């Protein structure tokens, strides 16, 4: 692979990861916590209505996990393309 095609392939895989993770980011916050809140509030877990829980707790936990997943994925990707240092 030339440097240019290698860089292109790396970038493409990176963008794919980012899009997938941002999709989840959108689902847990904007969908579960806001748009679908009322429907999810019908379900109760302990004292929490589920939509309320996503908006004030769940979305934030998922955010943290998303970043660490991205860190792992990218560290692997960097190795695969020899960009790690």
């Amino acid at each position, binding site marked *: 692979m030339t440097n240019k095609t290698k860089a292109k392939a790396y970038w493409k895989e990176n963008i794919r990861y980012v899009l997938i993770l941002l999709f989840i980011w959108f689902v847990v916050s904007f969908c579960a916590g806001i748009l679908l809140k009322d429907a999810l509030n019908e379900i109760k877990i302990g004292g929490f209505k589920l939509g309320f829980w996503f908006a004030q*707790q769940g979305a934030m936990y998922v955010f943290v996990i998303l970043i660490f997943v991205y860190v792992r994925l990218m560290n692997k990707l960097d190795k695969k393309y020899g960009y790690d240092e």
Partner: protein
Amino acid sequence: MAMMNNLLFVDGLGVQNWTYIIVGSTFAIYIGIAIYTRAGSTKEFYVAGGGVSPLANGMATAADWMSAASFISMAGIISFAGYDGAVYLMGWTGGYVLLALLLAPYLRKFGKFTVPDFIGDRYYSNTARLVGVVCALLISFTYVAGQMRGVGLVFSRFLEVDINTGVIIGMVIVLFYAVLGGMKGITYTQVAQYCVLIFAFMVPAIFISIQMTGNPIPQLGFGSTLSDGSGTYLLDKLDGLSTDLGFAEYTEGTKSMVDVFAITLALMVGTAGLPHVIVRFFTVKKVKDARKSAGLALLLITILYTTAPAVAVFARTNMIETVSNQPYASMPEWFKKWESTGLLSFTDKNNDGLIQYLADEKSNELVIDNDIMVLANPEIANLPDWVIALVAAGALAAALSTAAGLLLVISASVSHDLIKKIINPDISEKGELIAARLAATVAVCIAGYFGINPPGFVAATVALAFGLAAASFFPAIILGIFYKKMNKEGAIAGMVVGILVMLFYMTKFKFGWFGGGEKADWWFGISPEGFGTIAMILNFVVSIVVMKFTPETPEEVQEIVENIRIPSGVGEATAH
């Protein structure tokens, strides 16, 4: 519970003395660190030499980010807003996902000192740089004024000094370590401040969670049943109390869905576009470290942010139970103390000697400021004196760490972007360092002035800061990284239009300029707080349209963009 209190009240030192001891020793630590880590070069002053470890940077970012607003105001706002408070929780954490995935790694690879630096170089134009400087200054000044007010508030309530004296003490402390240590001093004091503020936030939360629900983890506690044996869930009880007094159900909220959506998104992109947050990622060694430290920063922030809604529920329930329909004469000591600060006020409208706390403004007799909830929470829950003193130290740590980070952005914008890059490129390293220190000093004085004479619009302008960051930096940086054909004409036009529209909307609906307007006149039903979302979209659209009609980006700039997408070969952060 009585036993627990007895065990903890063995000291008898009193709140006042405890506060002097705890606040005094934390200040001594900050000053000690500042002396130990003072900056000797511009690189140390701007980016701490570029060798900060991911964990230290994560802690510093968390302290930098969590301001007086996060520590003092947020739980209070949530306790009054109920479900709607989620806009701050998701908005101020979700931005870190954008930061980690879309900005931090690439900006680190680019390796500059400031955000206007990136804008100026990526868009090969000093006009773009100047627009960046104006945005950075506008955002940071509006933000820092609020921090100084927080410092004054804590001093006046806990140490019973005059609020102005409190602001001046805060100014001297910040001046000392920001001017002497620059980014290097700030980084390591922020690490210490994170420890102080998180400990100070968690201790009372855990105590109260145990008191109310028997569960030591506040995040679980507020979804548990009450410890009084009734088997009622705490949230159900609060929903009931709220509706009894005429408020909306706590778990439902009152804002429209479209507004909640817009505010959350505006705060997220605003967070990712705030210069004092972005600049922290210039201080780590490698691209890999930038990603990791964004994750660590969010983890450390989330500890406080997931506890805040629990504190909000505890405080709200305790508050209602303590005051509602109780005789004014039998109110506990904290009630009188807070009355004297003006943050709590009672008018006995129906002269029955009881406190009627109701949603209906005509018959409501008690006005409670948001800011009280966290600060008074330990007193309301009868926690020991040292916990109350700890909260004061934590609030000061939160306010001071954020103020210092903002002052650094202001000073770097002036000395590096304005003087070194635009006005006098021949300035020596030493001259630039002196300019940076002078700029920081002037900035502290201006911030202090606003702290002593708070403009009535401080609260409004903090929202403005997020809106401005969302409307200006976020699109310009994203396009700069992900769209290599974006040229200077597009980016400048986008930033200028984004900011102006945002300013227009805020001033129209917040200050009544341009004919003012009511809630019914909001565009698309979106409040000024959420309008950053619209202004951001407008920025993207304008940038792309203008780009199509103007000369293409030079080949060498496009190559720079391709280069920042690859993580390896990161030089150290340099000015050239």
